């Protein structure tokens, strides 16, 4: 293991610090998909 003295290195979190699941992502976008991530065709919707 390579240890590092306290010299600051910047880091960006691509998830913004939140462990977002598929359903959280789609919900935040306001999508109204079946069970959160399923696109139904017309017949299934009926």
């Amino acid at each position, binding site marked *: *293991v*390579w*240890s*590092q*003295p*306290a*010299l*600051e*290195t*910047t*880091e*960006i*979190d*691509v*998830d913004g*610090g*939140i*462990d*977002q*699941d*598929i*359903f959280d*992502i*789609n*919900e935040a*976008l306001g*999508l*109204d*998909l*079946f*069970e*959160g*991530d*399923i*696109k*139904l*065709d017309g017949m299934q919707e009926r």
Partner: protein
Amino acid sequence: NSIIGDNYRWPHVIPYVLDDSLEMNAKGLILKAFEQYRLKTCIDFKPWEGEKNYISVFKGSGCWSSVGNRQEGLQQLSIGANCDKIGTIQHEFLHALGFWHEQSRSDRDDYVSIIWDRIQPGKDHNFEKYDDKTSDSLNVPYDYTSVMHYSQNAFRNGTEPTIVTNIPDFMDVIGQRMDFSDYDLQKLNRLYSCSSSLSFMDTCSFELENICGMIQSSDDNSDWQRLSQVPAGPNSDHTNMGECKDSGYFMHFNTSAGAKGSTAVLETRILYPKRGFQCLQFYFYNSGHESDRLYVWVREYTSAHPNGTLRLIEEIKGSPATYWQLHHVSLNVTSKFRVVFQGMRGSGLSNGGLSIDDINLSETQCPHHVWHIRNFTHLLNTSPAGTAGRIYSPPFYSSKGYAFQVSLYVNGTTDNPFNLAMYLHLISGANDDQLQWPCAWQQGTMILLDQHPDIRQRMSNQRSITTDPLKLSDSSSTYFWDRPDKVGSIASFPNGTTFMRGPGSGTSTFLTHQRLRSRNFIKDDGVYILLTMEDISHLLSTQPSVSPTFVVNTSSANTIKPTSNTTATKPTMRPTATTTASVTLTEKPELPNSCLDNPCENDGVCVIVDRAPVCRCPAGDNWWYMGERCERKGSTQENTIIAVSSTISVFIVMLIVTITTAVCLKKKYSQ
């Protein structure tokens, strides 16, 4: 649980298009997800070449798919922003292959409780279940570990879970997005009648006495022995780590006896490659002397050499150690072959020998680098959260020559202390003056290895980061992936050598400690982080030059409408450079544009083959277009008419000839 109806199945090889709207990181990850399908199932994916039905993967709003093959020509699957995780992509493709969510199966109430009053108003319908006339659980038990299961907090209104598992131990299991579970694979393989997978070749943990069909060579001085422990080490095998009574074997070559140079050779059974590249993985334990050697060879059989010829692949040497170490060896074999393990006694005094265990061979690419972190439990127990508990990997070079390093927060960041956090950094390296900056389209993949002995049952956790040459730093004053000696900060190696480390990109929620302690992530008190950084700039332009049946609207999940199912649209131009003058994408492929003026008639589709335009002509059950530009139509009806006409013509001609002959003969004889 799968949608019922064979009409919803895809063929085993699924045509796909990667739309250029996709993020580069997502494109690379989709290809990695396909590799997991190839490793663990018989489902394969191929770039679309004019097939009627295919999956178009694009960056829409969110992550979504239809369930099953809708047989509507182009079928869309969206991998939107933040969906670029391999588990998410595997999840969406399982929908496309015909699977619903796990907790919607008909018997789910036996295994989970839906807490209806914790669900957001108006979202109850997302927790419906289907009866067994609609969905089929394929005779597989309810699977808390499925990649298709909701997490405990799905659609919650508040802070309490909406799904509670009837067996409490599974509360933190549901909702995993690491990889397919064993039952996911069982169901997929049952649904598609898979009897084997495409890229898996062999696994062996030496638990059975037949040692997986391996053979001892007669051209050596000694044999490998199947043992469960050796006084000088190892004390146990790697498969079970000595935890299971009457099991736990490995193969050992004793180098404490015999003369210098004496050898023992162990050969696998004959294997038949399909792809021409393979990755051999195994655990190795050296309790002998540093002069002892393990050689990995392949014995290749060809028509010219039916008895096989040996080719040395790798010499493994090193100081003896008191632990098992993972090795990867890349092979590139195209004819039938065996892998040959040759142990050789060195010149030094040995009390032990060489041992191997948990071998896996697959037709996949090996990871480029391995970071082995030992005494990991101690690190977990003692490291503080935040930067004080951050450790760095050794420096590595990518295949293009970029130097990089990974940082790991063992006990997470201060905001996420119960997670592993992992970040990728470019660092200053020996090739920096010759490299392109800012660094463009290099995809770094960090895999925390599930050390299950069988590669097919591993559920490793991984994340990928792709360098975007135009990405700006937070201050917007510099490019994020520019030269580390320009945008980085000074750092030093343990030996005191200083270098520059660029900013890191990654996630503070790489994996929860709860999941880290599950499965075989920590084994022999060590973890393995497999690292690969590869150039994916060839994926900049992936979509075909023409969309044949639909216009794709990538703006919203709900606004996608087919325009026509017969008319080819105007050719879609591939994107030109996505970079400014300050960045030169030396690897960017030259884009063929011969299809821009679509030469194909009658709805033919223009595709580029060997950099030349070729028309793929439409065809129905009893008709087809043909010719270079699909200008001629053929049909079975026309063929029948032609055949009948030809027969009648031949008959008439024959009749005329016969009559003429008869008349002439009559005339001759009458004379």
